[in-house]
């Protein structure tokens, strides 16, 4: 009985801070909803009902969570090693685009083309991230700025391609590529819903990331580089090797996020498909809220996705923009950031008290 109590207490210790952050975030959202003239409680009730509590919406949330989960993993891969990769969006766009182009235009047996598409996507995403790493290594260009700039660049350039040369001729309004062959669509779980095996692939990636982080030399070396680069160098860890490999991994994973969305849900690359939905930024939020832990990020991503789905249905029924969900989410993230360090301060104070006592005891 005691052991259960112990582990529950441990769980509570980890959870109560993000929980308070969530409550505070919800309060902020409630204020906004009130201003618009609606009852926050009924809005929230609808939101939660329409995100997880009916099968239809639950599936929507889970489907939407897929690119978010994978983007959060991409963020985790780089940030753990101390490399602030903000370019998940650009890497996702480029990876998704490359894979789509190969899938649509490359001739050959389906199986081979699919593999080629996946590989191209991952290589494109990895290369894009590697470029940022390279110019940091050789020219000291801040990864924060370069990856951010590269998001815009990737977005504009791919938009150009799908507006002109690679545009879908069958549709005169939509700016998009042609559809990828049916044989390459990811199998759906339930026939008429977009929920597909992509979710389980994402789950698999979560397990993979968990494994890498906890049980591989690579994960160990990147974690140590992130915690104390001097210590890592002292121990023989090669800094550039860690930087290039974590950034490449991060870019490749982000590309996977794009590919899962395209091969599983949309079946084509269309304008703004990743930017208007802000998958990458939501993934970033999920990663940060869960302090860069893959499992935490998995659940946070689903939660955030659910909020967005709920937000969308609210927008349809009341007109309140879906941004209310983003507002709540970013407020939560803000409160979490403070809490993480309020915690640290409390621990510091405890230590001082203990030391004083020791000194007093002589």
């Amino acid at each position, binding site marked *: 009985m005691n052991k259960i109590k112990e582990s529950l207490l441990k769980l509570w210790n980890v959870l109560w801070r993000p929980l308070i952050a969530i409550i505070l975030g919800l309060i902020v959202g409630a204020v906004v909803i009130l201003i618009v003239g609606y009852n926050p409680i009924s809005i929230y009730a609808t939101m939660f009902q329409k995100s997880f509590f009916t099968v239809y919406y639950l599936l929507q949330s889970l489907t939407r969570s897929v690119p978010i989960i994978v983007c959060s993993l991409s963020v985790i891969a780089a940030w753990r090693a101390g490399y602030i990769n903000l370019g998940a969006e650009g890497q996702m766009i480029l990876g998704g685009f490359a894979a789509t182009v190969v899938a649509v235009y490359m001739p050959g047996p389906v199986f081979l083309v699919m593999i080629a598409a996946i590989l191209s996507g991952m290589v494109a995403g990895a290369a894009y991230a590697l470029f940022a790493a390279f110019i940091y290594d050789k020219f000291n260009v801040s990864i924060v700025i370069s990856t951010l700039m590269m998001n815009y660049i990737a977005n504009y350039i791919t938009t150009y391609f799908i507006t002109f040369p690679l545009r879908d001729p069958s549709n005169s309004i939509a700016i998009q590529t042609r559809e990828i062959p049916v044989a390459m669509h990811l199998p759906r779980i339930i026939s008429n819903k977009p929920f597909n095996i992509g979710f389980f692939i994402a789950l698999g990636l979560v397990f993979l990331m968990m494994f890498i982080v906890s*049980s*591989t*030399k*690579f994960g*160990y*070396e990147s*974690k*140590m580089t992130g*915690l*104390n680069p*001097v*210590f*890592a*160098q*002292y*121990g*023989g*860890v*090669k800094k550039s090797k860690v930087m290039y490999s974590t950034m490449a991994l991060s870019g490749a994973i982000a590309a996977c996020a794009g590919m899962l969305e395209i091969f599983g849900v949309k079946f084509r690359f269309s304008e703004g498909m990743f930017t208007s939905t802000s998958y990458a930024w939501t993934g970033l939020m999920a990663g940060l809220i869960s302090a860069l832990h893959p499992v935490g990020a998995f659940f946070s991503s689903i939660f955030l996705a659910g909020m967005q789905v709920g937000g969308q249905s609210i927008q349809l029924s009341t007109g309140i923009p879906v941004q209310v969900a983003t507002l709540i989410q970013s407020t939560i993230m803000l409160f979490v950031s403070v809490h993480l360090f309020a915690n640290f301060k409390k621990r510091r104070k405890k230590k001082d008290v203990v030391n004083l006592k020791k*000194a*007093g005891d*002589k």
Partner: protein
Amino acid sequence: MKHITKIYGNGVLANDDMSLDLNESEILAVVGENGAGKSTIMKILYGLEQPTAGEIILRGEKKCFRTPQDAMKSGIGMVQQNFMLLPPFTVAENVVYGNEPRKNHLLFDRTKAQKEVDELSRRYGLAIDSSLIVQDCPVGLQQRCEILKVLYQNADIIIFDEPSAVLTPQEVDGLLETLRNLAKVGKSIILITHKLNEVMAVSDRCVVMRSGKHIATVKTSETNTKELSAMMVGREISDASIQPVSTGKTVLDVEHLVMHGEAGKPILKDCSLHVEEGEIVGIAGVSGNGQTELLHTITGLMHAESGSIKLNGKEIFGNDVRSIREAGCAYVPEDRNTMGCALKASLSETMLMAHQDEKEFNHNGILQHGKVTEKFNELLQEYDVKYSSLQQEAGELSGGNLQKLIVAREMSHNAKLLIISEPTRGVDIGAMEFIHNQVLAQRDAGAAVLLVSSDLSELLKLSDRVYVMYDGQINGELTRAETTSQKVGMLMMGGTLDE
């Protein structure tokens, strides 16, 4: 002669009912070994710490200093070991910092500042060009700037905390001259030091501390270094009867290392040394003479420009850290917190560093947690490290325990070459003895040990041979039999053995 008296005593672990007094125009030396409590009592005087008990009386008035600013207002200034200077700014800007001369209330009158500082430096005989940029100045000048800063605040009482620790011998002479001049013009100086020759050279009186307690206050003219060191140490330095076990086979061979730093400043000037199997070779010297850079070059953290480094006959000059470690080198670094560990990492992770490629722990890139836990628990118990779980953060361990962990980690390599820097800095006596015994054990097992320590008694106790480093070069070499503190001290100050 006005009597400036300060009496205080307090009973915290650092200072145990400690009292001292200071007179006008006198230089009072406060001596003691590392950990005697000298810095603590001065921090109290300067307002950086509060006494648990006791009082400070300044010119007959009871005073309480809650912050350094309070102390400064009462005319107390302190020149600390870590300078509080702003490197990219000029000497003048640094000296007047906090009390800048103004033009029109808002603007910083830098010309006036320069004039004032030049005037100040002339008045106290501390020659310095106030337009120099601090980061371009040698350490001695930087210290001078720090002193001027204190004088600019109109300090009457100036505390110097181990001022010669970072200076070259010539600079030390300059410093002592400065101290004498300051006392002559009416300042009261407190000099914290463990260098007895300085005490004899400039102080009027001397307070000896040991383990936080006041041992004696003597007039410098009535005592000598032998007496003082006896009081400081309180015991005979045990003549450890350590038998040499060297086989004579050279493990580390360093020849003619040359390295320059920023702006071409020479850091290593033709350094050569060697270490044999089964011997402990110590490098003595005032810190800042190139010891850190020498070790970093041997371990691959830095690269020298020319020279040769051979480990067991194989050239490792210019190699990276990993290959040097693989060639058989282990390293206990000088600063355990910035280099020896990651404070937020778990104990298990901290111990895995530099072991993560070993077949026992790593099967094709996958870590074997079971083995890791088993081995590390064993190792930590063997080295008597107090910890609650391998998953706790490294930063939670006490200094001594963390050091033992790092020593355990590095020694478990049983490397042919073991390099140790400052093995017992900030470590309690019990852990100190333990670590010393471990070092001796490694040596007895045949390792070549290269030891750098600013604790001369530790160095002399453990080393079979001693090199002395001065100004980027090996100044002299002594065997255990030949070593005396006087000889080593002489070499450390830049002298030669023939003097």
